[in-house]
């Protein structure tokens, strides 16, 4: 936790805490709370059968994306795995469109055709939402490859988990990213469990931030339950990439409160372990305390934010329930760009 002492010092210097102003702190609080409440609602809609298939919640990990988005500039790109709802909300995608994609409706970001794991936004430079563990890592480096080729000074945040960190293509990518000095930040969100396998049972050496050493990629361990620490590390990584020095690795230690997906039996860790993290390390609570102790916000101010978020989330759930299912004709669209109906041409049975 950023200490109260430093908060007080910063206040004297016109700052709330660390390198964040009171307004920035409030905005991180708001953004993290939005993700948490959104995910709780998603879990609820899943239980009601409105969301189907796989649904991987981000609860507990909110500070990672909110901290890194605070270090990003307009035009920077991001790509991640299937645990993607938080990333989308943090980069400014509309909660209505995200929730409606979860329910498989027309108003969803992919018109209901992608689902929880497959969402994209060209406008917000969000390149998915990938369902195959590790596959987004070379894709992220490829986005950075395009940026370098086009010489546009953008960076790409490529997120993956401690589980994906053992995939072979990650190291193929590290090699090429370092060789070609690609402006890509590899963010290893280490929530300490690859599905149900604890990191110590799957990984020969615990320090994932050192995994780039053989390729000459600098790495850093970051407290992912501290949004300001994440932001600070993110800024350093961004500066490194933007200056043309090539890739950077951030291992962000975090914790997922919920199961791997909705159908997780939670037999691989104790309830006490989860409870302890929630009580002692929670990233949202930490910022809440900072805001109150630093007198940057009153209980009433925070209640107002809570209410505002609750309304946004409940509106998104209503939108996601009310949006119609995609028209049956959508089955045959977006298979090929410019929509030449190749799929239909193969449907010879009805001819």
């Amino acid at each position, binding site marked *: 936790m950023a200490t109260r002492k430093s908060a007080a010092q910063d206040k004297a210097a016109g700052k709330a805490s660390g390198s964040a102003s009171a307004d920035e702190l409030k905005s991180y609080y708001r953004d993290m709370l939005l993700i948490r409440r959104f995910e709780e609602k998603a879990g609820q809609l899943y*239980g009601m059968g409105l969301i189907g298939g796989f649904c991987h919640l981000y609860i507990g990990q909110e500070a990672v994306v909110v901290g890194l988005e605070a270090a990003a500039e307009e035009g920077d*790109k991001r790509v991640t795995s299937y645990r993607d709802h938080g990333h989308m909300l943090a980069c400014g995608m509309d909660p209505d469109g995200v929730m409606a994609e979860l329910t498989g409706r027309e108003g969803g970001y992919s018109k209901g055709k992608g689902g929880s794991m497959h969402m994209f936004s060209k406008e917000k430079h969000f*390149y998915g939402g990938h369902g195959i563990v590790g596959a987004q890592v070379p894709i*992220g480096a*490829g986005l950075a490859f*395009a940026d370098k080729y086009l010489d546009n000074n953008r960076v790409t945040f490529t997120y993956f988990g401690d589980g994906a960190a053992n995939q072979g*293509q990650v190291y193929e990518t590290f090699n090429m990213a370092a060789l070609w000095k690609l402006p890509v930040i590899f963010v290893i969100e280490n929530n300490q469990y690859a599905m149900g396998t604890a990191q110590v049972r799957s990984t020969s050496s615990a320090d994932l931030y050192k995994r780039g050493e053989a390729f000459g990629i600098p790495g850093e361990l970051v407290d992912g339950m501290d949004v300001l620490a994440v932001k600070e590390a993110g800024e350093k990584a961004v500066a490194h990439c933007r200056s043309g020095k090539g890739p950077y690795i951030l291992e962000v230690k975090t914790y997922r409160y919920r199961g791997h997906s909705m159908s997780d039996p939670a037999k691989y860790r104790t*309830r006490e372990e989860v409870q302890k993290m929630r009580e002692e390390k929670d990233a949202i609570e930490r910022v809440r305390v900072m805001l109150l102790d630093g007198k940057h916000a009153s209980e009433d101010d925070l209640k107002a934010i809570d209410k505002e978020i609750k309304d946004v989330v409940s509106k998104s759930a209503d939108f996601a329930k009310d949006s119609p299912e995609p028209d049956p004709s959508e089955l045959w669209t977006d298979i090929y760009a410019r929509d030449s109906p*190749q799929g239909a041409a193969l449907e010879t049975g009805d001819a």
Partner: protein
Amino acid sequence: MPTEVLMPALSPTMEEGTLAKWLVKEGDTVSSGDILAEIETDKATMEFEAVEEGVIGKLLISEGSEGVKVNTPIAVMLEEGESAEDIAKSGSDEAAEAEDAGSKSGSEEKTAESGKTSDKAPAKAKSKGDAKEEDDIPKPDQTPDWPDGTKMRTQTVREALRDAMAEEMRRDPNVYLMGEEVAEYQGAYKISQGLLDEFGGKRVIDTPITEHGFTGIAVGAAFGGLRPIVEFMTFNFAMQAIDQIVNSAAKTLYMSGGQMGAPMVFRGPNGAAARVGAQHSQDYAAWYAHIPGLKVVQPYSAADAKGLLKTAIRDPNPVIFLENEIMYGKSFDVPVLEDFTVPFGKAKIWREGSDVTIVSWGIGMTYALEAADRLAEDGIEAEVIDLRTLRPIDYDTVLASVQKTNRCVTVEEGFPVASIGNHLSAVIMTRAFDYLDAPVLNCTGKDVPMPYAANLEKLALLNADEVVEAVHKVTYR
């Protein structure tokens, strides 16, 4: 208003479960995230958490109840200031509503089922004069690929492929080539000869030997606005990368609701070379043609190699471009035109004939054309069609030909099971059944891994004799 807590669906397939244990009792105050109950599904025992804060008003289902359907109310939560009396009031209304909904959906199901039954009645056989059949008259596009009188020059397939890439790289600065040995080595098969000199190291890029990784990087580059050409030293090695080709490149346009896709070309030699054994000798045409979202090209001549590769590079979709090592050195006439392209989905008739239709593509055309020459000596006139693209397939040209010849033989180097020939047979059966005077025969490679021994390899590969024999079978002469 009191809110009902419903039996949750805790896995993608769960329909009912056992309420194993309540961890709260009536009157308890709970907050979001508190565990309410343990629920047993078919997979595991799961903890069920509260999503809202409130007070447990009433537990509706007792511990140990089995077969509790998803969405059955299992408890009622109260907000501040509400009492248990509010429960009865709102509860009974909703129960009635739920029952209504249940019976309604039940009757709908029945209607759908009875509709299905009538569909199952045997359809009346269609006569040739049916309107539907009229609509299905194939309309092949047989416009020539280049105007009459165009100057021609002789070129190898290798040179044609290089020229196609060079022309497209001059035309669009975002087209670049990456792969193993494409730059300084000048191409493992010399396809990229001279490109590094002309376009420099930024656009002609040697990769490490990491197909999975560099294919994924190229897919990302395509998402990011570039037009990558990925050269696989051979398509055998692309199996390392097939997840990125199929799951990332082919499916993203659909999964993103049309927002972004991967305009790129995957190219390289495919199929058997000579004496290189099982792991380096496989035809992947049927594999890739199976995938919606990909386009698949397998040229035979140098002119098609050039015209189709230029079209592939311009296409806004991922294109699999299957070349052949044995064909690289073969020479053909190539039109001398400023910008010569060949459209996808347009087959080429190499030889007209009225007795049998032989359909092939890529190196298979070598056997098809040789067989046709020999059959002509026996007085059998074969029409030989080169599909050129396997996705999309020009069904119209094939069907129009079969309607004329009433017989068809397909020729491909790939394995027989789930081959392109199998698919063509099914299409012809479906759309031209009444025109067939013989079963469609598929000539393919043998159903064995490619052997090394010279004599066995020869036996495993397709040859013109087998095509001739198949034609004799379907023409009964």
